[in-house]
């Protein structure tokens, strides 16, 4: 199988290199052909790998490709760990990537950077595959940073736009804050295990959990807690968890296909994947899991609220992504790793669909993104309309759609988790924060999703006459990916919920300690999909979702004066939402501004005034003055100098000999 794995990884890389370096020679058609063939090959082979595992019970494989370097007994290797977790991720990544490649032919049709774009998205696919297929922390970090690099390049793809190149710098730097923690976490792992290899590290996990680190003063911290929190800081950057979420909404400056691929379906889920991959470690630190669930809960609820006040079609979807990533993080914190990965998968399909549908609308609207200038598009774009509806229903967890199964089980998992049965105040507080957030989040999700849906597709047509006259359905390269993504968005949950959540699908890839194994507890009550549908009528979740849709319909179609009035009356609250809880100000004015001021201060007062001014030039001036006195001694005769030198050297050597 080794050659299959290598082909899966290298095909997109080679395609990216060909399209990137020889784009001019092979032309536009050449560029999209070669990259689609490359990613297509990866998709087929990834599907084959997963099929072999499911149908024929092929075992997980852990193999080394080459030795990157060995220093001081630390083996740094490149290798693959292909188990069911990575195989599932490979299929999701390559499939969504392939859809986005095809879609891009239509979306970027008139762009002068066509070949460059295809090169980047293929390169991204390579980097993401390296990340999910890694069997060690070094390669994980490589993939982690490489997807960050491509994200940087793609957000700033239209590099003439000031907003785009601001957004990509912001994205890279905020991610680097996360990576800072991530790298320290990896260093912590090496400290205790002297290994970067997953298998070796997991084998020594009990030993790590028995160690302590002094971080602040003399207080010893559990080593596993410190390591897991540090690693999670990395996940917070990549998966945009508060307060490191600020880069994701701005990343919408990039072309829409990459918003779907990178900033919805794949790269932003890397953090979720990483924590699931590290489940053997996280299971040994309840404190770290508590941090995870609280951060996730805050993100899930509060970022969802922001979606309600956004008017840019892509930004609404972006805040929705933040909120859904929060749901996945909550699942991780509840030790329901399989539920997190399940939601990751369904979300990849329906969120990619929603972004591509938004892109389809944007094309038809001639790159207008303000939903206040849309409306009634339904009749012009039927395919986009129906696929968007499917995506939105899946997003709000409408019964029987894929999102229904995945989101419901996150909420159920929180409810049945050890946090709920915990007896301490802290555990109870954690539980209620998490549970209320994911529960109320359902209403919020439905509200912002259908607010957008109604404003775009229903109601009066608010666009100008010029735009309206050109409104029509987008070409097949755009609509076919929409349809191909709508199918799994609608049905994949139905077919996969049982094996993925309760069938021991992930095998040894995900380790949950028996006492915390909430999913197997839920599995005891599993009575099939139909049973779950019926059960849904007895829980508040479905009613909250329906209430959200109804509220959206009433507020934005029936009585649009009400939201305006609310905005007027509660301007204080509205402002907080509009300014995104002032997080951007904290980062941009606080940290970035503070950093620049500190830099100025150090450069001016430190280097220029203190070191150069006082010490260096001050010394030089003193020497100059002394030299003025010494000048009296200068006679201008060569022998005087020679004599002085000889005396000096003799004295020096004499001193040295005396020392000896």
């Amino acid at each position: 199988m080794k050659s299959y794995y290598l082909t899966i990884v290298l095909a997109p890389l080679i395609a990216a290199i060909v399209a990137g370096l020889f784009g001019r020679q092979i032309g536009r058609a050449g560029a999209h052909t070669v990259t689609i063939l490359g990613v297509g090959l990866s998709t087929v082979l990834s599907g084959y790998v997963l099929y072999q595992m499911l149908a024929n019970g092929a075992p997980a494989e852990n193999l080394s490709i080459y030795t990157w370097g060995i220093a001081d007994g630390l083996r740094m290797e490149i290798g693959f760990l292909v188990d069911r977790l990575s195989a599932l991720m490979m299929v999701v990544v390559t499939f969504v990537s392939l859809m986005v490649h095809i879609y891009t032919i239509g979306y970027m049709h008139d762009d002068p950077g066509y070949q460059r774009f295809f090169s980047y998205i293929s390169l991204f696919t390579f980097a993401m595959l390296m990340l999910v297929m890694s069997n060690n922390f070094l390669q994980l970090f490589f993939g982690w940073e490489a997807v960050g690099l491509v994200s940087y390049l793609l957000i700033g793809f239209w590099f003439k736009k000031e907003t785009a190149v601001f957004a990509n710098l912001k994205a890279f730097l905020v991610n680097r804050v996360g990576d800072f923690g991530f790298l320290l976490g990896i260093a912590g792992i090496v400290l205790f295990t002297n290994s970067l290899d997953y298998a070796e590290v997991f084998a020594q996990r009990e030993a790590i959990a028995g160690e302590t680190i002094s971080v602040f003063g003399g207080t010893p911290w559990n080593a596993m807690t410190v390591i897991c929190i540090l690693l999670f800081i990395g996940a917070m950057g990549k998966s945009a968890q508060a307060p490191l979420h600020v880069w994701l909404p701005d990343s919408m400056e990039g072309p829409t296909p990459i918003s779907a691929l990178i900033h919805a379906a794949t790269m932003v889920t890397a953090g979720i994947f990483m924590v699931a991959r590290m489940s053997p470690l996280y299971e040994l630190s309840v404190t770290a899991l508590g941090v995870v669930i609280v951060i996730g809960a805050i993100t899930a609820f509060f970022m969802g609220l922001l979606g309600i006040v956004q008017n840019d079609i892509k930004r609404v979807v972006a805040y929705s992504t933040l909120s859904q990533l929060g749901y996945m993080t909550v699942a991780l914190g509840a030790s329901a790793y399989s539920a997190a990965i399940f939601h990751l998968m369904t979300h990849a399909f329906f969120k990619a669909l929603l972004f591509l549908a938004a892109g389809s609308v944007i094309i038809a609207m001639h790159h207008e993104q303000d939903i206040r200038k849309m409306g009634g598009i339904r009749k012009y774009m039927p395919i986009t309309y129906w696929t968007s509806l499917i995506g939105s229903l899946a997003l709000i967890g409408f019964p029987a759609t894929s999102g229904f199964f995945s989101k419901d089980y996150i909420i159920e998992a929180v409810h049945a988790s050890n946090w709920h049965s915990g007896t301490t105040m802290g555990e109870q507080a954690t539980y209620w924060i998490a549970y209320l957030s994911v529960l109320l989040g359902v209403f919020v999700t439905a509200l912002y999703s259908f607010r957008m849906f109604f404003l775009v597709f229903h109601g009066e047509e608010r666009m100008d006459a010029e735009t309206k006259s050109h409104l029509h359905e987008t070409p097949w390269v755009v609509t076919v990916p929409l349809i191909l993504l709508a199918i799994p968005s609608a049905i994949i949950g139905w077919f996969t919920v049982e094996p993925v959540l309760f069938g021991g699908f992930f095998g040894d890839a995900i380790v949950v300690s028996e006492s915390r194994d909430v999913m197997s507890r839920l599995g005891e009550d599993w009575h099939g999909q139909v049973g779950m549908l019926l059960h849904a009528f007895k829980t508040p979740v479905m009613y909250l979702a329906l209430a959200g849709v109804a509220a959206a319909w009433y507020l934005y179609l029936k009585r649009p004066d009400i939201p305006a009035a609310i905005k007027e009356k509660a301007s204080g609250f509205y402002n907080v939402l509009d300014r995104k809880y002032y997080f951007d100000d904290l980062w941009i004015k606080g940290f970035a501004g503070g950093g620049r001021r500190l830099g100025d201060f150090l450069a001016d007062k430190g280097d220029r005034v203190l070191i150069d001014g006082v010490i260096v030039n001050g010394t030089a001036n003193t020497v100059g003055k002394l030299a003025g006195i010494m000048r009296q001694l200068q006679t201008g005769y060569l022998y005087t100098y020679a004599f002085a030198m000889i005396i000096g050297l003799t004295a020096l050597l004499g001193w040295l000999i005396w020392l000896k």
Partner: protein
Amino acid sequence: MEFPAHLLSVLIWLPIAGGIVALVIGDDGDVASSKAGLMRVTTLLTSLLTLAISIFLYTGFDKTTADMQFVERIPWVEALQAYYYLGVDGISAPLILLTTFITPFVVIAGWDTIKTRPAQYFAAFLILEGLMVGVFAALDGLLFYVFWEFMLVPMFLIIGVWGGERRIYATLKFFLYTFLGSVLMLVAFIYLYLQTGSYDLLGWMDAPLTMTAQKLIFIAFLLAFAVKVPMWPVHTWLPDAHVEAPTGGSVILAAIMLKMGGYGFIRLSLPIVPDASGYFSSLMIGLSLIAVVYIGFVALMQKDMKKLIAYSSIAHMGFVTLGFFLPWHISGSSGAALGISGGMVQMISHGLISGAMFLCVGVLYDRVHSRQIADYGGVANTMPTFAAFAVLFAMANAGLPGTSGFVGEFMVIIASFKANFWIAFFAATTLILGAAYTLWMVKRVYYGEVANDNVAKLEDLSRREFLVLAVLAIAVLLLGVWPAPLIDMMNASIDQLVERIAEPKLLQAGL
């Protein structure tokens, strides 16, 4: 005797001879003259031939031993027991290869941009190359010192003659700083000679020395090497020197001459005065972290591209000194060699990346005659190929995995976590600061709309420029994807060094 005979001597004297030949050929005071053409071809061929011969240093190198290889030893100044004594191990060989690899780029980069006194210019670089190889190859203290001091002369001339407006101030600062530092090194050498009766560097490593003597020697070495690296707070000569130096001068200065400081620490300070190195290691780590954090912030606010890269160099060299002085703070069985290896890899990598970044500034300077960031904007519109290279090198400078810039930093950060959480914490801030100052510059120079007429008129890379940047890009990527050949080359020597410093001299000598 190994093939080819006297390899190290060839690598030292071939470029120096080539430089003298270039001076003899001359340029008739006219860049376009046929003599100038012949002179340039001679220079280029000499540097390429030196590079080609240095390949034997790699192929013939025995990675399994920590002993000196390619040794040459003949009496030199018999009265002083000084020998013409050359040899390399896994620490010096990679640095010699770096030197022979970088020099041809400098020759090519200056090909038709140097209009005044081209013969002297090219000769200076060739002679400098030979002297720098000499420093790395010398195993005799006196010989080392001679190469070390003579090396200043060509660089002094390069900045002083072909430099910018404030070149006199810059050269004076550069010369005084480095010269004052190295004079103290000479005093320490003389003391060691008197103690041991020879100038044998390897012999000095085994010489018993009292703690007081070790401390004094360490301080003397520190002043010489800290200035070269440069370490905070003796770093302010570097930005001035870089700003005034011509492109080639900046490249050699950043890529190789700064490494002299790091090399001095690892070749002399650590093995000769290990107890004092341990005694001062906390100070050294503190200064290294100041270089990473303080200088990182200072770099952020630079308005001149060359100054920014100069400060970035100081911050990156902080990882070198950090890695070298970690061993005394690591209690476990492993980690000491990891830090030192990381520091060494960082030196090689920084040589490639800083060289490439200065060449990139040179490409812009040749066209617009400005180094100010504010004079640019939207360069990617008119020079897309060049912008691609610039972004690649910027990413390498920010330590992106897959480029050489990551390897050393990764190893040093991991080793520093083994020493102390907070050392690792401050070292790892480079992930944020390095990315911030490098990519902010990229944003302001390369991205955005075309900022002015100068940028609008820019032409993309010439074939000559493309070749130079492409070869460096390949080297940076190759070393990032597969650093094993480099790390393997150093392992045996570094293990031996770690063993040496793990057993305090004082105990061994019963002092």
